[in-house]
């Protein structure tokens, strides 16, 4: 759906235009920022990937020796191989070792601000929790993780040597730092209160963990340390952003210095609410002139902060000069395929560019060929030699491209609708593994099973075929989907602990169509049991509503604290249970993963709904 929407927008000519584009709604505060700094198992920060050159680039930025970093890994192969995704941690623990693409199964898990009930296959997950050697929960709330690990399930084996640690983390109000919204603009967040109780900031916890493991010097080689809670040392948040600035050339996370961002925060009134642009004005504190800046310097904000790139409010907008926030499509997929040029056609370029046709991405060789090398200063030349626009730590290549010649450092090419390296180069409808329509499965079957996909064996066809063969759709005739409520966030442990929000949604529920409800003798507000092919039976209130069609039911995913009809309040540390607890829909969700990203299937499974016995 996401790719199809992007292709449709491209075909309609709605990309690269103010008011157009394909801005996706993300679920949490700063998800974009988190993604940008590289929590994914296939990349270093700023989408540099895991190749040797990427490691060398970041080691230079961090100020640590590449060979030293390499030594921390079992092998260079492991260092450069994409890891298992968080969606499959359960299998990384439980799967037979010979079937996974790494030496050992996962034995330790650190849940850092992560909610287990936002992940599918709850029954399997509980087994994985009980098999771990080590579980660490770092969170402002002990969270469903702690409760899920603590609860006893009859007949299930528990690793007697499992160690569980709960580390109280400070919230966003108890620290400062930059946050990134889904329009790619950054804001600086100030600390409102000191960390409460025993909580510590995330970066203090990380620093202290590195101390225990003996690499704190390398962790903060280029960072300034300051006194934090209780006089303990922690990396300064400004210097952390500056380190991100020094390395993230590939996405233009380089110009957003703390100084510029703080000036923006102090002077929000100077920015136009529609264009986001500053019409003029200086920051009274620093004297920084914000004229022309877009609020929050949405990335790409290329070059060094001194270059004063204004940020890019709309990607690929060739009606503007690159130093005015303009751009074009990136040359990211080579220059030619099947004898056809992938670069932009003649006359297609950002406003005022010296090159008026397509061009590849820039490196030192291209700069020299074009006779632009001498536009670099001597200091820039030293750092730019042998480098490209992504790895030149001087920012000179980006400066010369943009400021001197008005061209885009990442090249100028055509947008790509056909992704030849994906299983489906053009998005194709495939029926979910668990569905109610065998006729559609025959027409739109899923993929073949995969081996070693993000290190995991991943089943498609074998599961789908088995489900059709067993006629699961007869026992589970309703499609079950899940999603969000406005009152709660993510797994909901924090928001369900907030009385103002908890009051608004006090129990978990299943939205069921009046026809489906009537056929089953279910009345609005009654308890029902929702069962799925995993054997899970969850107890929720029926909400009889036309929001869903007769063949579909919906359950929000923010609840936890009940386990198949039982309140788990005794499994929470004393006094730490959220005000509102309820059945997690993901206790009941089923197997299924995206064939590219390994994203879990939370949107489609099948269920039956019946009245709960009184």
């Amino acid at each position, binding site marked *: 759906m996401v790719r199809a929407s992007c292709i449709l927008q491209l075909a309609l000519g709605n990309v690269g235009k103010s008011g157009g584009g394909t801005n996706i709604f993300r679920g949490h505060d700063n998800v974009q920022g988190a993604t940008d700094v590289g929590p994914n198992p296939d990349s270093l920060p700023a989408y540099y990937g895991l190749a040797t050159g990427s490691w060398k680039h970041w080691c230079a930025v961090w100020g640590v020796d590449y060979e030293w970093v390499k030594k921390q890994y079992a092998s260079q192969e492991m260092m450069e191989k994409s890891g298992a995704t968080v969606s499959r941690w359960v299998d990384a623990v439980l799967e037979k070792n010979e079937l996974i693409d790494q030496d050992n199964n996962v034995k330790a898990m650190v849940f850092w601000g992560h909610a287990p009930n936002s992940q599918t296959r709850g029954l399997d997950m509980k087994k994985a929790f009980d098999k771990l050697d080590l579980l660490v929960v770092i969170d402002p709330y002990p969270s469903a993780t702690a409760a899920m690990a603590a609860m006893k399930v009859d007949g299930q084996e528990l690793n007697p040597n499992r160690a569980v640690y709960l580390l109280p983390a400070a919230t966003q109000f108890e620290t400062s730092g930059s946050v990134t919204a889904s329009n790619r603009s950054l804001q600086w967040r100030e600390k409102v209160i000191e960390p409460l109780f025993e909580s510590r900031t995330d970066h203090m916890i990380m620093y202290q963990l590195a101390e225990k493991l003996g690499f704190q010097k390398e962790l903060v080689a280029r960072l300034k340390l300051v006194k934090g809670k209780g006089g303990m040392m922690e990396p300064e948040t400004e210097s952390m952003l500056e380190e991100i600035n020094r390395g993230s050339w590939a996405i233009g996370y380089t110009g957003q210095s703390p100084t510029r961002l703080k000036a923006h925060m102090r002077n929000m009134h100077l920015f136009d609410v529609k264009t986001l642009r500053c019409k003029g004005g200086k920051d009274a504190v620093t004297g920084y002139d914000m004229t022309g800046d877009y609020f929050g310097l949405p990335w790409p904000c290329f070059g060094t902060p001194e270059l004063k790139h204004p940020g890019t409010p709309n990607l690929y907008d060739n009606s503007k000069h690159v130093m005015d926030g303009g751009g074009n499509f990136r040359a990211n997929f080579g220059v030619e395929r099947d004898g056809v040029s992938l670069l932009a056609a003649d006359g297609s370029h950002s406003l005022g560019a010296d090159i008026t046709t397509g061009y590849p991405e820039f490196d030192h060789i291209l700069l020299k060929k074009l006779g632009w090398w001498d536009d670099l200063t001597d200091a820039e030349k030293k750092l730019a030699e042998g480098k490209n626009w992504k790895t030149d730590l001087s920012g000179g290549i980006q400066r010369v491209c943009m400021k001197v010649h008005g061209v885009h450092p990442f090249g100028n090419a055509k947008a790509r609708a056909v992704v030849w390296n994906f299983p489906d180069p053009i998005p194709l409808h495939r029926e979910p593994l668990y569905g109610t329509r065998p006729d559609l499965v025959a027409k739109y079957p899923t993929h073949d099973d995969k081996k070693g996909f993000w290190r995991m064996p991943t089943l498609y066809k074998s599961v789908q075929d088995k489900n059709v063969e067993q006629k699961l759709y007869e026992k589970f005739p309703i499609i079950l989907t899940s999603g969000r409520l*406005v*009152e709660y966030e993510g797994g909901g442990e924090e928001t369900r602990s907030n*009385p*103002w*929000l908890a*009051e*608004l949604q006090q129990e978990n529920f299943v939205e069921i169509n009046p026809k489906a409800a009537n056929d089953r003798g279910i009345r609005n507000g009654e308890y029902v049991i929702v069962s799925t092919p995993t054997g899970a039976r969850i107890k929720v209130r029926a909400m009889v*509503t*036309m*929001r*869903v069609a007769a063949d579909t039911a919906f359950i929000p995913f923010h609840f936890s604290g009940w386990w198949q009809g039982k309140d788990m309040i005794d499994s929470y540390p004393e006094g730490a249970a959220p005000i509102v607890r309820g059945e997690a829909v993901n206790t009941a969700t089923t197997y299924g993963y995206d064939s590219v990203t390994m994203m879990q299937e939370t949107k489609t499974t099948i269920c039956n709904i019946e009245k709960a016995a009184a």
Partner: protein
Amino acid sequence: MARMKFICDAERCIECNGCVTACKNEHEVPWGVNRRRVVTVNDGLVGQEKSISVACMHCSDAPCMAVCPVDCFYRTDEGVVLHDKDICIGCGYCSYACPFGAPQFPSNGAFGLRGKMDKCTFCAGGPEENGSKAEFDKYGRNRLAEGKLPACAEMCSTKALLGGDGDTVADIFRSRVLRRGKGSEVWGWGTAYGNLPNPKPIPAPEKKS
């Protein structure tokens, strides 16, 4: 002097409950007391679903005021209908009279002590000294005295809910209707304000000590 009014634009309300949460947080209203609520009609019917945020509308000819047997209500010079909890006897007449379901009668907690009525104050506090602890404890924060508008409307992400000078909020609403060419029906406006002239202030009842 401004005449304070609320407008909720049903074309814009997205049922996010931000107003409800803002109110709860601003005044520390206990669980079970709902000074403001979002009501949705035709839930789940495509194209017909509408939501509206409802609280005390601070009516021009306020029925609560008319029926109160102990005359605990008064009206500020900005047209805000307030009441004195020290005089209220918790009889509930106002609740029957109110067309908006504004008066709330909790059974316990700071606001509901001895079952006294609680309702939206347009963030204008009560008869106690502006900004005093006594005022906060009984009525919540007095934002108007601080030169601020009601927290609910200020928090509204789509600006469906507008609270402020009646002329100003009506102008904003009118220009929206002109622009979009639909949704001119202002829910509750006629009931609350009718064609009545701006009401005269009525002083707070004198304290009997």
